[in-house]
């Protein structure tokens, strides 16, 4: 067997795993990889900040379902990835993170650009590992891809010292890694499925709550079939936003703090809440006491640790959503009484924003939504994110094509995630809805999009405020606004032009549609700076009345 350098083995295994693109930023410790890169059929997207590399891999993974890969050097390169890794972890996105590390003989000496990234990322990775010899690269990478993608997906980090990358060893592509303790449960427990079926059969007004797990599992059709079978309305969490086609009439929108009234009313009148791939986070549930008392709960999740994590569950089923729903539907169909259960279903009355001719976030989102394109839509974090989740109800929204940082709420996620998504689907239009605060957090990636010609339509909801902070100060701090205002000192269109792109500033609501159309036609990233007049807060939902 021929001897190969660690860096070559790494690139070879990546190629064999089907990796066509990596997002990265070079540094001293990863130079052996970059030195060998041109010999392999891998596209490297050079970012402008490592955090963006992690978000791009994340965005790529979310839309494609394939593992996204990012690469950074030791020390600051690795720590810059941390926010991106945590974002992927909280939203269960499959990414493999490769970090360079100082040479083995310097480990633990606080050498130049040394940081214990494995130690730092323990709580925010599904698994992480030092690779201490070139012979370990193949099994460790294979394991990393398997772990990232299987069961509940998540980020896996591999930390490789520089001298491991230059070490020569025999390359055996067939080495398999054993994972004795890793055995994700896919098939649901038959007894539990039977119990759930019986409960659903006897339920008077069951509802289905769908989370991001349905997108990861690809169980959209099954959820829709089940809801029709039971005549049960469907609602989603923020992460489940694009899990159900907008054309399903009994899809009632989003639950939670900023959900729709219809969804909250349906929850309140339900006697069985059937949750699929949703983890009942605090923003979705509002009050654990009140939520727990609403109805009987059935919870399907692939991660046993999510069962009963926050609320008491009557029938838990651990396993893959698609697998379990298929079996459940089979069982329900076998029962004749299910046909007599046909009930009148509540139809969704899509909440429309009361147009007042002014520039407001919801009205711009409605205009975009009304264009009904099959765009990939990404958001950043803040008021625009929630307005987008409420009012972007376009029939063109495909499954898993709404990208948002739901768990961590990472401002600056949007632009890199949209670039990653565009790399995964070059033929689809990608639209980013962002705010003036969030956009500024990774604005440097405009240069990446410009260099690699990855076009994204950027709609900035520029209200010169940190809108969500303003809203929270409004609600909880008696309207005392502290440090939530930005002066009008940034011209986003000029910034875009400065990075080789173009854009337009929009101050009249009647010009918005034209600007978006222009952006969609453009073959490079187009920045639409929408100057927002209104500071309208998002309504809160509650369990009272």
């Amino acid at each position, binding site marked *: 067997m021929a001897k190969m350098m660690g860096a070559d083995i790494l690139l070879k295994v990546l190629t064999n795993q089907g990796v066509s693109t990596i997002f990265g930023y070079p540094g001293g410790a990863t130079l052996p990889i970059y030195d060998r890169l041109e010999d392999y059929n891998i596209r490297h997207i050079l970012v402008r900040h490592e955090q963006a590399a992690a978000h791009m891999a994340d965005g790529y993974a979310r839309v494609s379902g394939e593992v996204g890969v990012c690469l950074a050097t030791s020390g600051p390169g690795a720590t810059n990835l941390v926010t991106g890794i945590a974002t992927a972890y909280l939203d269960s996105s499959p990414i493999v993170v490769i970090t360079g590390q100082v040479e083995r003989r310097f480990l633990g000496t606080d050498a130049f650009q040394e940081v214990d990234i*494995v*130690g730092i990322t*323990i*709580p925010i990775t*599904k*698994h*992480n*590992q*030092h690779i201490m010899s070139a012979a370990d690269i193949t099994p460790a990478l294979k394991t990393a891809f398997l*772990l990232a993608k299987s069961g509940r997906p998540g980020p896996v980090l591999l930390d490789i010292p520089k001298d491991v990358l230059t070490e020569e060893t025999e390359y055996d592509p067939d080495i398999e890694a054993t*994972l*004795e*303790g*890793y055995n994700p449960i896919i098939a649901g427990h038959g007894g539990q499925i039977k119990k759930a079926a019986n409960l659903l059969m006897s339920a008077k007004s069951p509802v289905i709550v769908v989370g991001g797990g349905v997108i990861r599992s690809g169980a959209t059709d099954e959820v829709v079939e089940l809801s029709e079978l039971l005549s049960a309305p469907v609602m989603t969490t923020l992460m489940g936003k694009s899990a159900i086609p907008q054309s399903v009439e009994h899809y009632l929108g989003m639950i939670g*703090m900023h959900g729709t009234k219809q969804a909250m009313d349906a929850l309140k009148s339900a006697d069985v809440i059937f949750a699929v791939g949703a983890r009942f986070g*605090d923003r979705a*549930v*509002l*009050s*654990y006491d*009140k939520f727990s008392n609403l109805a009987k709960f059935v919870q399907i999740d692939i*991660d*046993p*640790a999510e*069962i*009963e*994590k*926050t609320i008491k569950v009557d029938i838990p089923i651990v396993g893959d959503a698609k697998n379990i729903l298929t079996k459940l539907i089979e069982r329900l169909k076998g029962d004749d009484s299910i046909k007599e259960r046909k009930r009148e279903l509540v139809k969704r009355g899509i909440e429309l924003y009361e147009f007042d001719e002014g520039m407001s976030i919801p009205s711009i989102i409605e205009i975009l939504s009304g264009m009904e394109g099959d765009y990939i839509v990404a958001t950043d974090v803040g008021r625009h994110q929630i307005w987008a989740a409420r009012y972007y109800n376009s029939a063109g929204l495909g499954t898993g094509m709404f990208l948002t940082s739901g768990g961590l709420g990472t401002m600056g996620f949007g632009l890199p995630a949209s670039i990653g998504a565009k790399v995964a689907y070059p033929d689809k239009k990608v639209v980013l809805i962002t705010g003036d605060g969030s956009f500024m957090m990774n604005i440097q990636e405009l240069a990446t999009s410009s260099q690699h010609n990855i076009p994204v339509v950027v709609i900035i909801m520029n209200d010169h405020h940190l809108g969500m902070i303003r809203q929270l100060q*409004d*609600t*909880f701090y008696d309207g005392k606004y502290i440090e939530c205002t930005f002066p009008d000192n940034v011209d986003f269109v000029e910034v875009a032009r400065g990075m080789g792109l173009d854009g337009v500033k929009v101050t009249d609501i009647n010009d918005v549609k034209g600007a978006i159309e222009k952006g969609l036609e453009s073959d490079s990233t187009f920045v639409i700076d929408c100057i927002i007049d209104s500071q309208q*807060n998002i309504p*809160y939902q*509650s*369990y009272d009345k």
Partner: protein
Amino acid sequence: MVKKLERVLRIYPKEDEQEFTISILCENKPGVTANVSNLISRRGFNITSFIGASTQTEDVYKIIIKLMATPTGLKGIVKQIAKLINIIEVRNSFNEEFLEYEMLLVKLKYSIEKHGDILQVVNHYNGEIVDLHEGSITIAFNGTPEKVETIFALIKPFGCLDVVKSGIAVMRKYEDDGADC
């Protein structure tokens, strides 16, 4: 004025902390203990005893942790530990009968006048004198944690120079039928 919103301050119901024991079978890989203790510390719980050593199976290690935690918190910890990639099995002592055993190694100030008194404790509790130097005597005791506490209380007045406890080894009283050990 916008209505004040109901806010969630604490996910878990208010509970008192109790002592629990977790027994873990894991692969002998770097970072396993760091991963496990991280899951405990991030919830603000404290480990009171932590031991780990090899088992009858090659490359499989057993870790036994005693900790102060709330019952709901413990459930979360056990589920999260089970998820760790290098963990083979986790059990908690919640509903099981189990045996506990501990070793105490103590170095006392020694003088010929104290000899009789020290020896009385050693003989009564089946201690073993492992080392004797001028001015110091080192003795090992074994027993349940309660017994070790008693011995320690008796021996403390002699003047302790150093004390080491092994940490508490825990074993289930009964194995499942047909389980091969």
